[in-house]
């Protein structure tokens, strides 16, 4: 897979699926916090973010930049970084859509979780060389190591 390796602890994956299930039929979105490791990028925490696109919440998301700002600040203080984002595709596959590609940034992993009739299904991750570029699928690995596994947690959206 050309998109690199994304180490995503099972507890973080479960948190993303749970968020998607709760938000259904709307899209859920959130932030991946982690670090660069030898094999790729390791997520240590996922944080829920608010979707500001209330007009089209069922098929679009605009992640609240204030949630993003706070995640950047807190990740930096912990010696970590925002390494990507997640969102859900209610009743659509976990592939990156043309909309996703057109609005994507290089340097991040984008996790997408599909939901069918409200039930979480496939979870895949993508990277992009540039905005509008073809998505490159990341290899999602469940564990990176025990040392940081216990740090993984799902936290509520800021101010929410």
């Amino acid at each position: 897979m050309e998109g690199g390796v994304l180490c995503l602890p099972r507890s973080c994956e479960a948190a993303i699926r749970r968020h998607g299930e709760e938000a259904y039929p709307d899209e859920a979105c959130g932030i991946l916090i982690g670090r660069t490791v030898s094999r790729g990028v390791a997520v240590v925490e996922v944080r829920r973010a608010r979707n500001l696109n209330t007009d089209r919440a069922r098929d679009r998301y605009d992640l609240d930049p204030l949630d993003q700002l706070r995640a950047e600040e807190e990740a930096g203080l912990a010696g970590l970084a925002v390494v990507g984002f997640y969102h859900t595709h209610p009743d659509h596959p976990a592939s990156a859509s043309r909309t996703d590609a057109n609005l994507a940034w290089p340097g991040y992993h984008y996790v997408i979780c599909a939901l069918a009739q409200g039930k979480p299904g496939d979870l895949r991750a993508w990277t992009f060389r540039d905005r509008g570029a073809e998505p490159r699928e990341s290899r999602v690995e469940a564990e990176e190591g025990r040392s940081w596994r216990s740090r993984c947690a799902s936290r509520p959206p800021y101010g929410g």
Partner: protein
Amino acid sequence: MAVKVRIPAPLRGLTGGRGEVDAAPGSVFEVLSGLDRSFAGIRSKICEESGEVRKYVRLFLNDEDVRSQGGLQAPVKDGDVLSIIPAIAGGCP
């Protein structure tokens, strides 16, 4: 003391991988110009040729959107933190 500028992952290729860099105080416009002198090409990733901030980039000065503080003319003082936040959006199909 200087101004701290937070650099998001997509722009760290221009700052040698650094997520935070120092800049001289001034207006937001002047801070970005100074940044571009140190890290060539970074301003064009943030601003249009016309000088306006790109649609898909947000600038926060000490946790507040610069648009509510005078935009590119907002003053940035020693100790302030200017954060560059790429807009994250998408959806299906």
